[in-house]
């Protein structure tokens, strides 16, 4: 499998550069929507749809969009597709819309999407950008569902709304609440470290790396990167 094959682009997002568990991007929706498997799956697929659409659109326009104006253009395109997806969800899946609420709108500022636009779609042909979008979207969805499964099964003793007989008796209710999200995410990252013997996650601490705005940003943190490390 050559490094440049289309298949590797697809798989890259799911495993090697999994946005949530390896690149540590998109933390907000990861924490906020993984209280239930349904919510996580909905969020993941909505983000996948936006990601594929925006990647394709941006890739198509990559020679038209001027270098200096690329960030505002990307934001407009992404916000547009987010609104389209939001309206479709609101019209055809009202229950899911009620669960996700404002987080659907906030896909606009999900770093994964702007990040892929900046790092991949703006430089690659349409087909590859689409595959990258699918791969990243699936990777995002997969990690969300894994986290949601842990939180829902142990937190409310059910899976995707279906009750699990034995688990019902021994629920750890706080897992479905806010602190549970942070805790499970932390434990998962530690687990990945153990399983991969320290090779993953790639990012060792929270900083501006991977932030799509890093290039036009000069916070002390970003400066530190060059000076201290």
């Amino acid at each position, binding site marked *: 499998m050559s490094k440049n094959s289309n298949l590797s682009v697809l798989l890259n997002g799911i495993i090697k550069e999994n946005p949530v568990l390896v690149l540590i991007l998109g933390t907000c929706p990861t924490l906020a929507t993984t209280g239930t498997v349904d919510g996580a799956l909905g969020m993941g697929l909505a983000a996948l749809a936006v990601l594929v659409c925006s990647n394709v659109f941006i890739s198509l326009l990559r020679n*038209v969009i001027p270098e200096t104006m690329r960030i*505002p253009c990307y934001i*407009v395109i992404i*916000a547009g597709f987010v609104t389209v997806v939001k309206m*479709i969800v609101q019209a055809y899946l*009202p229950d899911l819309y009620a669960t996700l609420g404002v987080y659907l709108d906030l896909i606009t500022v999900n770093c994964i999407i702007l990040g892929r636009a900046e790092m991949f779609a703006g430089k690659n042909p349409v087909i590859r950008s689409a595959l990258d979008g699918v791969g990243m979207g699936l990777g995002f969805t997969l990690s969300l569902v894994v986290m949601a499964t842990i939180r829902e099964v142990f937190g409310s003793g059910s899976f995707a709304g279906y009750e699990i007989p034995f688990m019902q008796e021994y629920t750890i209710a706080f897992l479905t609440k806010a602190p549970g999200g942070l805790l499970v995410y932390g434990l998962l990252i530690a687990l990945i470290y153990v399983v991969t013997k320290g090779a993953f996650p790639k990012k060792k601490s929270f900083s501006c790396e991977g932030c799509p705005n890093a290039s036009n940003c000069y916070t002390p943190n970003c400066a530190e990167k060059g000076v201290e490390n």
Partner: protein
Amino acid sequence: MKKNLKNIAVLVCICAVITVLLAATNAITAPLIEKNQNAAANEALLVVMPGAEGFETVDITAYSLPQTVTEAHKETSGRGYVVKLVTTGYGSDFVIMCGVSSDGVVTGAVCLSSNETLGKEKTYGENFKDKNADDVDAVDTLAGATKTTEAYKNAVKDALNTAVILGGGSVDIRTEEEILADNLNAALPAGEGKFQKHFFAEIVDGVDAVYTADNGAGYVCVIGDAFIGVNADGTAITADAVGADKAAAAVATIKATTLTDIDLTAYPTLANTVVSAKKTATGNFVVETKGAGYGIKGGNEYVPASGEYIIVKVSMTADGKIIDCLTVSQGETANLGDACKDEAFYGQFDGKTEADYTEIDAIAGATMTTDGYKQAIERAFAAVKVLNGGVK
């Protein structure tokens, strides 16, 4: 400069394309979204009117409806109405949603929120299903929750009345107090709507009650269902001859009644139980006595007793028959013991003697208050015996 213009043009073009895309999506999804939102809003309404096709909100300010009604919705296919009411039960803000079919039958009732004590009111509404206005009073009460039950039944009646009014009919939505006030006003317009119930010191046969106008314009006598106005000089202003005679006689008796104060210092045995005593020219007595109810005997370390006696005013013939009875003041527990100030309770003593005065309905849940009240009545009997020439 040229480059800037090109940049701006690109951004504007992208914005335009995206806006067109959004407008197209919006055109497709907007009707569906609106339908979904309506469905969500109507879900609560559907619970009380199963099978309804849709609802439209009625402008309730355009109708004269019971005051408890806060919202009304008309079923679009004409099945009936769903009414939302806010009433007061044991606690405040008892919100009830009630569906009424076009032929005046309750299709469902639910309690949306309440501060009631029991929690049973959540499912109580089911009992009203398929009942009409005549059946509502017969619905089983909630054990131990008289006020909640009453509030619920009144709310359901209000909902039934609302449906009639919205359907174009008319119905009496006045409360009992309002009906009484309207009747009094009709019988004696010169009274300007302000009346006090007269406290009898003389026996007047054939008249159920007399109301005195605050401004001295005259009296209204209640005889059965009839309200008869009497001028201040004692002439009845109603054509009903039999009633008018009785009313005039009653007013003559009232006007002839004179009360003389009795000096209680002459009766040391009554010092602790009697507040005041008066005597009529015909030999009847009017005494105010104290009874120890919850205000004296009750209370605990968390809710201390008020320290107030129940003061009762009793008029009585010399041979010990109660003519009239009235609660002057009390310090019993709110919502429970203070029912002793309602006429429904103290009116029971009218016409009683020492032999049968205990045969009255106690106040539910307020044994100490009832006992204290009976003690005050008992002391009135004892006082009249003393005042009428017994042992000092």
